[in-house]
């Protein structure tokens, strides 16, 4: 972390600011921290294996739906002479299936991969080493958050793009608008869940606790949004259902006001969760 310090000194050379006076929140410090986070992702190989897993998941779903009749014929122990008519899958339906696959496996993998992002550094003492430098708590949290966002949106785009391409090859062409719209809605849901993970990673000592509380919260929200759609349509949990609708509807999805609220509350919640993480980090910057 020499870099951050040097950058900080560089920007304050003329002013001769006392080192401990204020915590700088300059953009240069933030960029250095972000670079450090991305390097960390690369060193732990997360930047490589997470996108590959998403690509495999994304390819698997269209291939499976394409070969499903053959698989059932070969592997299912159907009585001789049974004829099952399986309707050819719709391309948009396959994309929605892929999204729900990402919603289970993908979110599990991402939450588990990011669970120790603050608590791990804090337990090992690395966060204390960073935070004694003139680095603001906000830029420390934000750099971690942005690195998670880069990883999750990138992986989702790669996996979903692969699914879209394979659906086009195997089943049928799905328009770009439903594809992109459902991608953005699902990405927003991912961002929300991972921001919850970041908050719990700051709040709790154990990394596994952070992963499972945030996954539990995500499951609770989606179940609530599915059970009582009338009252929970504004909650971020409704985003997954909205993304499936966006994938299956031709052209632009006609969004109801309540659905817009789901997007807005998700954005507000992400900002609030980040602010809460900064406050929590300020209260306990390091374990002693």
């Amino acid at each position, binding site marked *: 972390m020499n870099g951050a310090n040097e950058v900080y000194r560089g920007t304050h050379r003329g002013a001769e600011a006392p080192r401990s006076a204020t915590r700088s929140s300059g953009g240069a410090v933030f960029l250095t921290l972000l670079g450090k986070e991305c390097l960390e992702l690369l060193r732990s190989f997360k930047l490589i294996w997470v996108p590959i897993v998403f690509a*495999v998941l994304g390819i698997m779903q269209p291939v499976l739906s394409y070969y499903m009749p053959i698989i059932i014929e070969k592997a299912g122990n159907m009585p001789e002479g049974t004829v099952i008519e399986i309707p050819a899958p719709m391309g948009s339906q396959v994309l929605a299936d892929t999204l729900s696959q990402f919603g289970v496996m993908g979110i599990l993998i991402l939450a588990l991969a990011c669970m120790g992002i603050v608590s791990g550094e804090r337990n*090992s003492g690395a966060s204390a080493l960073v935070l004694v430098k003139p680095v603001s708590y906000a830029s420390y949290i934000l750099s971690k958050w942005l690195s998670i966002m880069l990883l999750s949106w990138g992986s989702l785009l790669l996996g979903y793009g692969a699914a879209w391409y394979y659906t086009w*090859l195997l089943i049928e062409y799905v328009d770009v608008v439903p594809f992109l719209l459902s991608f953005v809605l699902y990405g927003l849901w991912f961002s929300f869940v991972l921001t919850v993970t970041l908050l719990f990673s700051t709040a709790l000592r154990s990394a596994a606790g952070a992963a499972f509380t945030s996954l539990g919260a995500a499951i609770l929200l989606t179940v609530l949004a599915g059970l009582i759609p009338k009252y929970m349509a504004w909650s971020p949990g409704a985003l997954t259902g909205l993304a499936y609708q966006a994938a299956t509807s031709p052209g632009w999805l006609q969004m109801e006001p309540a659905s817009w609220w789901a997007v807005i509350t998700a954005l507000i919640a992400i900002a609030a969760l980040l602010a809460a993480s900064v406050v929590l980090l300020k209260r306990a910057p390091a374990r002693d």
Partner: protein
Amino acid sequence: MNETLELSKMVGLLVPLIILQLILMIIALVLCVKTEETRGPKLMWVLIIIFGQLIGPIAFFLFGRRQA
């Protein structure tokens, strides 16, 4: 004729999938062998990575390594 076409198409479609899985497996194996200490016996992880299809390497990446 039609069947060979179908077969070559199928192979062409599945090759990227297999290559991706192989890359994943190889990275996991190299990391597993190079790392000093894994959580649990190293041989167990090697077997999990090789026979665990997609789940094996993921499990190793997530749980197999001790935090340095």
